[in-house]
């Protein structure tokens, strides 16, 4: 057996790679070789470590030293000082809370997180199945196949209270039960990895960093509902994710964990990848099913629901990546363990991609029930450049805004629902007083107008009308009655659209009107954008201290 005294875990998530992580890794590898340390120091390419803004990142064990923002020319110094002489290179380390040599758990960004779904992300090599197995991977599958009846698996998921992480929060156990109860020989399991919410990348990270956890969850689901085959529907814009999932499938088959007669149990199940072209509507489950069948990606009328007549008109279980990723944990550690995390009706954790005006952006996993304040200020490190928190957009183009007065709201399904927003799939964008709420609403509505598939009239014709009004308001030509018009049109579209896309398209508008009506009014009545974002160009705003606030456009 090969022992390495030092493990250098280099983040190879897509963000870190695009920030130049690959070049750093190559340089590091060259330096290690030229110092003759190749038998002592092992480079491990991991998936996303979460704090993407700090990338390219590397964690060195056994010390647990965290290096950030690495460039190829740093490699020589790290090898010479740290790997050879045991002196961590201070200038490259994450400078956190005055700690001289902080490890991951001492950095506030990581300290408040609870990692179930991302438990392996950034810790194992996603292209090495044995590292997944080392951390108890596929043991849940082994347990299910050797000691549980399919119905017992469904019951365990029901007991856990897990809710779908794709957006709507539907009870996963209930859904599994529906599909399991269908009398049909051919049933399917689909993993929804379309992830169309702009700016969100939770699912991509799981696929890139720990693909086997998804496969394990899907195989367990296949056994529980009695399916013969699974499909992973992933957008073609995720090439690294596709590559790593394909490799994981190959390895799982070679190890006898996927394919025919898994672990000699008599249960057979295989999984294939289907790539989508990146339309937002194809994340909607029935449109997704059409797309897999080779048809136009347009939603179907419901009922029948996929659980009775889905893919190829057969009973189909469709869940989100993160939902499946929770399954091995629940089976391995038990529903009781899972329920201890989170709240009574929203158990477990949720992964968010934290973006916008916070000091530390990145991928976080938090127990449900955590407050927004903790996310923004403890994990995200607060608002940069002395600005103040104005609101958080949660749920992307289908979601709404949480204003500053609700900063202490618990992040769970019911609480968010009570103020007119949704959990969504994990997009979380923080805004400060330089963000214009009308402009944000316009941004998301423009997205839905472009992504509307055109099948039903309210969504196809209604959303452009709302966008027209918003464009008018933000260019200083708003008229009295515009707000009421937006509200009325929005409500009609919500009630009459065929699928969730139209039904939720007006949420960002309605929610910003609810909490920031005064901003709409000053655009319309005073022809002024209070945050100086919109093109009407009033004079730059001054804050309490009389400081000019830089006008920032949303990225």
């Amino acid at each position, binding site marked *: 057996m090969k022992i390495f005294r030092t493990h250098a875990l280099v983040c190879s998530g897509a963000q870190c790679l695009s920030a130049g992580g690959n070049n750093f890794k190559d340089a590091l590898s060259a330096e290690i070789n030229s110092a003759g340390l190749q038998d002592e120091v092992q480079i491990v390419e991991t998936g996303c470590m979460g704090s993407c803004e700090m990338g390219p990142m590397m964690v060195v064990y056994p010390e647990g030293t965290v290096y950030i923002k690495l460039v190829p020319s740093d490699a020589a110094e790290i090898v010479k000082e740290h790997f050879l002489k*045991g002196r961590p290179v201070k200038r490259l380390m994450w400078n956190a809370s005055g700690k001289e040599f902080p490890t991951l758990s001492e950095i506030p960004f990581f300290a408040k997180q609870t990692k179930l779904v991302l438990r392996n992300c950034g810790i194992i090599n996603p292209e090495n199945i044995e590292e997944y197995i080392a951390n108890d991977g596929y043991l849940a599958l082994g347990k299910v196949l050797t000691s549980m009846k399919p119905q017992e698996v469904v019951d365990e998921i029901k007991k856990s209270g897990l809710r779908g992480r794709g957006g709507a929060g539907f009870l996963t156990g209930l859904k599994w039960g529906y599909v399991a109860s269908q009398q049909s020989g051919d049933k399917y399991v689909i993993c929804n990895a379309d992830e169309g919410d702009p700016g969100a990348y939770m699912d991509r990270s799981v696929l890139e960093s720990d693909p086997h956890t998804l496969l394990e969850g899907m195989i367990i689901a296949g056994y529980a509902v009695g399916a013969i085959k699974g499909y992973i529907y992933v957008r073609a814009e995720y090439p690294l994710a596709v590559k790593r999932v394909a490799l994981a499938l190959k390895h799982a088959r070679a190890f006898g964990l996927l394919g025919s007669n898994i672990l000699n149990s008599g249960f057979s199940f295989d999984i294939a990848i289907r790539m989508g072209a990146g339309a937002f509507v194809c994340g909607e489950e029935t449109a997704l099913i059409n797309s897999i069948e080779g048809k136009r990606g347009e939603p179907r009328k419901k009922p029948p629901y996929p659980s009775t007549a889905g893919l190829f008109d057969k009973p189909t279980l469709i869940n989100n990546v993160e939902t499946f990723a929770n399954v091995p944990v629940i089976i391995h550690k038990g529903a009781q363990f899972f329920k201890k995390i989170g709240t009574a009706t929203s158990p477990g954790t949720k992964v968010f991609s934290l973006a916008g005006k916070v000091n530390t952006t990145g991928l976080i996993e938090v127990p449900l029930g955590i407050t927004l304040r903790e996310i923004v200020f403890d994990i995200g490190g607060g608002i940069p450049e002395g600005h103040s928190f104005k609101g958080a957009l949660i749920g992307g183009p289908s979601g709404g805004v949480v204003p500053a007065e609700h900063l202490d709201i618990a992040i769970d399904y019911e609480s968010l629902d009570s103020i007119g927003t949704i959990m969504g799939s994990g997009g979380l964008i923080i805004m400060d007083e330089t963000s214009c709420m009308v402009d944000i609403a316009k941004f998301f509505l423009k997205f839905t107008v472009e992504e509307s598939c055109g099948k039903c009239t309210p969504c196809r014709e209604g959303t452009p009308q709302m966008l027209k009004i918003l464009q008018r308001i933000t260019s200083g030509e708003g008229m009295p009655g515009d707000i009421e018009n937006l509200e009325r049109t929005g409500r009609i579209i919500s009630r009459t659209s065929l699928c969730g896309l139209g039904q939720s398209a007006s949420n960002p508008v309605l929610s910003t009107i609810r909490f920031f009506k005064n901003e709409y009014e000053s655009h319309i009545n005073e022809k002024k954008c209070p945050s100086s974002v919109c093109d009407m160009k009033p004079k730059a705003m001054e804050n309490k201290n009389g400081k000019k606030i830089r006008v920032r456009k949303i990225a």
Partner: protein
Amino acid sequence: MEKIKSLEDLKNLRDKAKETLRTRSGDVKVTIFASMGTVGIAAGAREVLKMIISELEKRNFSDVEIIEGGSLGLDVEEPVLTIERAGTKITYGKVTPEMAKQIVIQHVINGQPIGEYVIARSKK
């Protein structure tokens, strides 16, 4: 790769694979501190370290982490090696590769410090 045929096989594979990841868990029985200051290296600390790794490998012992440190200030005793096991730290001085080999076998793996090489001892 041979297919895994039972839960037992899977668990065996897990146990084997776990060993290779131990360094990342911080959950080990023995910690070896190797003093790698300039003086240490000049006195042969690299050769000592290499011997330790190859001996651990030969004996399949992975319940250990190796931490490189700077000099303790004991330049005359370099290469200096400290072993922490069961809450006690024992420091050896003027370690040669041959001594390192004995230290791995007797102290690191079997828990018997080698008295004649010891220069300091402390409780955690």
